[in-house]
């Protein structure tokens, strides 16, 4: 197990958003996390990446507890999050944003990586000298995904990466996710587009207001009736 969350409880002020959650992310596999609005998915990611501190429970990464580490130490360990709501650096250009993504890297291939993502999302190349804050919503989303990838993480956590993207780009993103997975990176994916997500995923978890209700093989989930009803749009 690359990542193992045990009985995690997280509170905002006094109110628990996660109420004792356990889940596992296997190395080299893609795990997806589904759930309705406010279930606590983003809260979980924020806790793993160190932005929130758990009230109880453990987060084991490669066997050691990272619950108490600071965000930057966690990033250095290879866990990177692409946050919900894009969160690009608005006053820096697209190019500078990408370079920021590679902050923890020390190698010299940064330029090549940037070029690679430019190929994948040509609009970013076109806008490379524009301030990121002035990009359209979708452009920002693409930038956020690429920026997360720039650090070459071991565990990539994506929070609704397809949000606000045109269908054609969504397909591109999923293709990319698949390629990343195939290159050996472990992925924890939060998606509202449950069907697509389960298709690329190996495992899936379903969350409901602070609890995990189902955890199963992705294929099984895709077929499960309850899941179909609640998360795959009824019909």
């Amino acid at each position, binding site marked *: 197990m690359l990542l193992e969350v045990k009985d995690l409880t997280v509170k905002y*002020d*006094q*109110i628990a958003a996660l109420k004792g959650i356990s889940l596992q992310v296997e190395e080299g596999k893609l795990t997806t996390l589904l759930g309705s609005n406010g279930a606590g998915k983003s809260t979980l990611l924020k806790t793993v990446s160190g932005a929130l501190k758990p009230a109880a429970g453990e987060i084991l990464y490669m066997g050691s507890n990272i619950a108490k580490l600071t965000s930057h130490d966690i990033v250095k360990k290879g866990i990177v999050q692409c946050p919900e709501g894009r969160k690009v650096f608005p006053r820096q250009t697209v190019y500078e944003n990408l370079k920021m993504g590679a902050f923890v890297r020390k190698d010299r291939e940064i330029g090549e990586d940037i070029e690679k993502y430019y190929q994948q999302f040509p609009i970013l190349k076109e806008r490379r000298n524009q301030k990121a804050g002035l990009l359209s919503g979708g452009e920002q989303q693409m930038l956020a995904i690429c920026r997360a990838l720039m650090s070459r993480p071991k565990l990539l956590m994506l929070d609704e990466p397809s949000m606000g993207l045109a269908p054609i780009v969504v397909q591109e993103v999923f293709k990319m996710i698949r390629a990343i997975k195939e290159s050996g990176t472990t992925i924890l994916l939060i998606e509202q587009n449950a069907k697509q997500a389960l298709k690329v995923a190996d495992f899936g978890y379903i969350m409901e*207001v602070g609890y995990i209700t189902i955890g199963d093989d992705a294929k099984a989930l895709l077929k499960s009736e309850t899941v179909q009803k609640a998360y795959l749009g009824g019909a």
Partner: protein
Amino acid sequence: MKKLVQAKTKLLLLGVFLVVILLLPFVVPNTYALKVLNNVMLYSVIALSVNLILGFCGLLDFGRSAFVGIGTYFFAIVMTRFQIPWIVAFLAAGLFTALAGWVIGAFLQRTSFDYLTLITIGVVEIVRLFLVNCTDVTNGAMGITGVPSPQLFGFVLKSHFQFYYFALALLVLCYGMISRITKSYKGRALMAIRDDEIAAAYSAINLPGYKAMCFGVASFFTGIGGAAMVSYTRYASPYNFTIDEGLILCQMAILGGLGSLPGSILGAAILVIVPELSRTAYEYRLLIMGIMMVVLMLFCPNGLLGRSGLKDILVRFIRNLGVKVREKRKV
């Protein structure tokens, strides 16, 4: 039924509180303590006006002391030079200050938070230097002596004791007015501006108009507070309206909790009373004040009665003792 009981206890508490407040002057040890109490109430009025600007409209105004000065001097000049009833001059001082505030507020429309903050300090300097230099009008650095005490319905409220009830009535009135404004749609418009100007503009809120109005209304109360204060000390001096004073007024609102009206009164009380306690320990006065401010901010970053302030700390404490406290939020 439960609601009724609750309402009853609330009423009872309010009644007890009222009696205590009304009888307070009879139990304080001396006139000095009374003076301090009166000052707390006068400063509360001003702190409330700061809260209106900062807590509700989100504009950091360090320049309230300038408006206190405008109110004070308008009142002092009018009262010492012309024969007009006290109450007329008093209200006129408020209105004149409101006008000044409105003009300045309207003038500062285009500036953003930080710029406005500095400019308000500039206003303090401009007003202070005007008061010092413009000797013909303001009697310059000498100040104006012999400002009359409040005269209401033929009574002259000269003693501290009498003034206590005047200040109390004034505070209650101002509190009521400000609270009504903040609870109305105009108050909500101010809060909307504070939270998100763009979304506010999309709700048909006229940003410049509201900001100017906020400055104007708040300045009315500031001016009234200033006039009441000079009616109390009976001497107007330009050296009362400094940047430091402006900072203190802001701190009252902030320490108490932005957006919380009782907070402003608490803040005023703290910042008037704590320096009194350290009056003879003057060597450490600033140290005491400084440490107090830092510590209070660390414990309640949103002010004592603000979000996650004293109340929440108390609730948490009680809960830790094992008592069940109703959670406000439904999950």
